[in-house]
């Protein structure tokens, strides 16, 4: 096919390189896999692990606040807990969870066999793992560096030098370096998503035929790509202020500490949409399937998602209304914040209209999706209150704000993610999760969630400040705080029920066999087997419209009633065992792992100013990069079938 290939085949021996891993099964293969599906599973498993860790931190926080004058943790430990809880839930749970689900399903939903950059994809995952290990290694005794300046890390609190710092220990150093690492990981995965979604669509899969989840991930990827550099710059400045005496946020030298807040929220507000848009996408997939109706107003949902992506850049200062921005700025940002509620509200009505008069099946996935709508609406309404500046000023730094963002991020993103798990895990493992247990899971989650976070509205309005590690009795907060703590434990129980469901139904294989299309689904992932083969599709599908799989199965009679097609979708399923031998998938590679983990020593080098760590990191990183660049993406096939079937190249589409 190409001259390049011919030239490279002769270079069989590659000195200095490790033997190319070939196995695609077994425990070790997970470290070398570049299969987007396995990487997706690893992302989700990692995120679930950190969800448990972050949840434990939350439980400790709730235990401390269960009654007045709590004594469970000290003030310093409390600072560490809420900082790590926030950082973990945003960077190590919310983002990787969405990226993991998207990693698995975006390529399948657009009819592709893989992502655009399989090894870069694996690299992004290992960087996130390295960042997580790095942040949590600060808890090793003797390091004295648990981040303790909040997940936002405001200056001047965080950027005073180590020796004269207001914050004890190396917390902000670990935090800045760790978050920069996580930013590198999410940027690479975002670039990969953009290229994959734009370039690898199957023939006929125009942009406006893509499932809404894919669309939302495209918007999220753009937000990530543009938001991450901003926080990187802010963190670099904080790091240099602390470690090398620069003066970026030192008011005594004439600097403006408020600059940090601008940079942080310039990243931070798009980040909010990075977290919630995947949830919206998942819900937009679940609702039509279980209502047996197409999504109401597809293009409006898509364009309101894009509108959120754009408007999300114009509202950051509403996090800073209490800092004295001046009346003009405050009014402008107040208005833009009200404005962004419009596309969000549009989506909610589209979802409701989708369910309206549908043949609704209340499966667990559907319950979580409906729960998402209800909880997210509550969170959205309390959010609109923050666009009203006097109201916002009153609520700033109270538990009202905590209530608000937990309603959008837990009630929004995580309800969407749980719904997505119940919806898609049968595809991933070929086994159904237990529906009865699932419903218990949903209802305990809903009750626990509301018990925990709804009273926070009240205590917030009663004046209970955020991040306070203890409070006196008799302020009217005691009873509600106890209720919140009980609710938090209900959430914990519900999470354990979910894990038990996964263990029993999937790991112990007690769940019913799912089959290719257990939900009577509408999108392409239901055309292939459960679990899908390495190459996803034996034949790249040809797409003729939205809800591609639905139209394989159903047609309408003259009166607009649904009629099953005689073939029942079987024709579209990935049979094709006869000719998949010609499909060459990229070979596994160890170098994404080596390169990604090479950032770990560099991180310690930065925090400890250690040239030894620096040397180790640079050597590992450069070795990984060079070996990566030299090794071919796909090894020449040992069992090449003398030409094989021609690899199917998707035709260009618009």
């Amino acid at each position, binding site marked *: 096919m190409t001259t390049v*290939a011919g030239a490279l085949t002769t270079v069989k021996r590659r000195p200095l390189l490790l033997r190319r891993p070939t196995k695609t099964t077994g425990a070790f293969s997970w470290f070398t896999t570049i299969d987007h599906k396995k990487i997706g599973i690893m992302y989700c498993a990692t995120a679930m692990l950190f969800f448990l860790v972050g949840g434990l931190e939350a439980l400790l926080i709730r235990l401390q606040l269960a009654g007045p004058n709590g004594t469970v943790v000290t003030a310093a430990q409390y600072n560490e807990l809420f900082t790590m809880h926030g950082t973990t839930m945003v960077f190590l749970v919310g983002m990787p969870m969405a990226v993991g689900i998207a990693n698995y399903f975006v390529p399948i939903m657009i009819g592709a*066999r893989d992502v655009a950059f399989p090894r*870069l994809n694996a690299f992004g995952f290992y960087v996130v793992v390295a960042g997580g290990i790095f942040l949590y290694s600060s808890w090793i005794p003797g390091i004295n560096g648990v981040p303790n300046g909040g997940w936002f890390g405001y200056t001047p609190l965080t950027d005073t030098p180590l020796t004269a710092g207001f914050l004890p220990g190396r917390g902000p150093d670990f935090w800045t370096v760790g978050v920069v690492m996580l930013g590198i990981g999410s940027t690479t995965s975002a670039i990969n998503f953009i290229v994959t979604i734009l370039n690898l669509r199957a023939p006929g899969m125009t942009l406006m035929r893509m499932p809404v989840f894919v669309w939302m991930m495209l918007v999220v990827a753009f937000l990530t790509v543009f938001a991450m550099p901003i926080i990187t710059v802010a963190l670099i400045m904080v790091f240099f202020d602390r470690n090398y005496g620069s003066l970026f946020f030192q008011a005594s*030298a004439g600097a403006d500490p408020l*600059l940090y807040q601008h940079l942080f929220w310039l990243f931070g507000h798009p980040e909010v949409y990075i977290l919630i848009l995947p949830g919206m996408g998942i819900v937009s997939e679940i609702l039509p399937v279980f209502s047996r109706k197409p999504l109401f107003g597809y293009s409006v949902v898509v364009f309101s998602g894009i509108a959120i992506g754009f408007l999300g850049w114009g509202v950051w200062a509403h996090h800073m209304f209490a800092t004295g921005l001046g009346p003009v700025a405050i009014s402008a940002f107040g208005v833009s914040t009200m404005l962004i509620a419009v596309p969000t509200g549009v989506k909610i009505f589209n979802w409701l209209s989708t369910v309206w008069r549908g043949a609704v099946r209340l499966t667990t996935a559907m319950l979580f999706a409906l729960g998402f709508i209800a909880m997210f609406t509550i969170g959205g309404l309390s959010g609109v209150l923050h666009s009203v500046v006097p109201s916002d000023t009153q609520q700033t730094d109270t538990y009202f704000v905590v209530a608000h963002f937990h309603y959008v991020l837990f009630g929004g993103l995580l309800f969407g993610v749980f719904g997505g798990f119940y919806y898609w895990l049968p595809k991933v493992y070929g086994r159904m999760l237990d529906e009865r247990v699932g419903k218990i899971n949903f209802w305990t989650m809903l009750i626990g969630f509301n018990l925990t976070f709804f009273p926070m509205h009240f205590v917030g309005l009663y004046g209970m400040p955020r991040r306070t590690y203890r409070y006196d009795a008799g302020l009217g907060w005691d009873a509600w705080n106890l209720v919140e703590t009980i609710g938090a434990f209900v959430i914990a129980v519900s999470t354990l029920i979910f894990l038990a469901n996964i263990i029993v139904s999937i790991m112990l294989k007690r769940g019913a066999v799912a089959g290719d299309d257990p939900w009577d689904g509408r999108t392409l992932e239901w055309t292939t087997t459960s679990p899908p083969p390495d190459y996803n599709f034996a034949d790249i599908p040809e797409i003729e419209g939205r809800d591609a799989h639905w139209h394989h199965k159903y047609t309408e009679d003259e009166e607009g009633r649904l009629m099953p097609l005689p073939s029942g979708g079987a024709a579209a399923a990935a049979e094709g065992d006869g000719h998949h031998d010609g499909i060459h998938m*990229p070979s596994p590679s160890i170098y994404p792992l080596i390169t990604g983990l090479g950032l770990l020593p560099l991180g310690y080098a930065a925090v400890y100013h250690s040239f030894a760590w620096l040397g180790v990191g640079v050597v590992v990183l450069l070795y990984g990069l060079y070996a990566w660049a030299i090794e*071919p993406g*796909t090894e020449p096939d040992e069992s090449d079938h003398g030409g094989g079937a021609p690899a199917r190249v*998707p035709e260009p589409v618009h």
Partner: protein
Amino acid sequence: MATIEQTTEIGAPAHRGASPGHDPHATATGVPNTKLAMWIFLASDCLFFGAFIATYLLYRGRDKVGPGPKELFDIPFTSATSFILLMSSLTMVLALAAIQRGDERRLRIWLLATALLGATFIAGQVFEFTEFNHEGLNLNTNLFGSTFFILTGFHGAHVTAGIIWLMSLWGMASQGRLKQGDSEKVEIAGLYWHFVDVVWIVIFTVIYLVPQPAAPGGG
């Protein structure tokens, strides 16, 4: 049928079972994966440098203590190094033109020339930093010191990464492993290199050329 796919710097074969890297028409948008990824990265880097430049502008002229840009800048010297970086963009496109017509000898020459011009720029920057240091400007002297060193320093780090990249390509070309069909690798590296150059065009104007604020203490 050959199955090895092109690898790129940090990129992988474009598509499982297919290799759109060779044929841009195989992708849905008609553009090669790696090139699209590089442009998105460059768009992202605009936000990165933009934040540093905005910080520099915010703190411009706010210093209470010197030395400031008025005392330190040596415009003829920095103009010369800026000119060198600008010309390295020319040698870069000439390298691309060479590989596109299959002229491997000129490819090697121009790649090496680009890397050397870049290295000269970096040498000039190191010299400039040392000079400023001797004249009393450090990262912790004043806001000008902090913003200047970090902005130009991170730009220099980008240039250094570009030099390493170019030298890697040059090494591949010297071993005869960079053929006419690999021109995309040179093009991607070139995009990065030109971007670093245009960022310097902005930095050079904003930091060095515009009229400087009055020296601290001098009113």
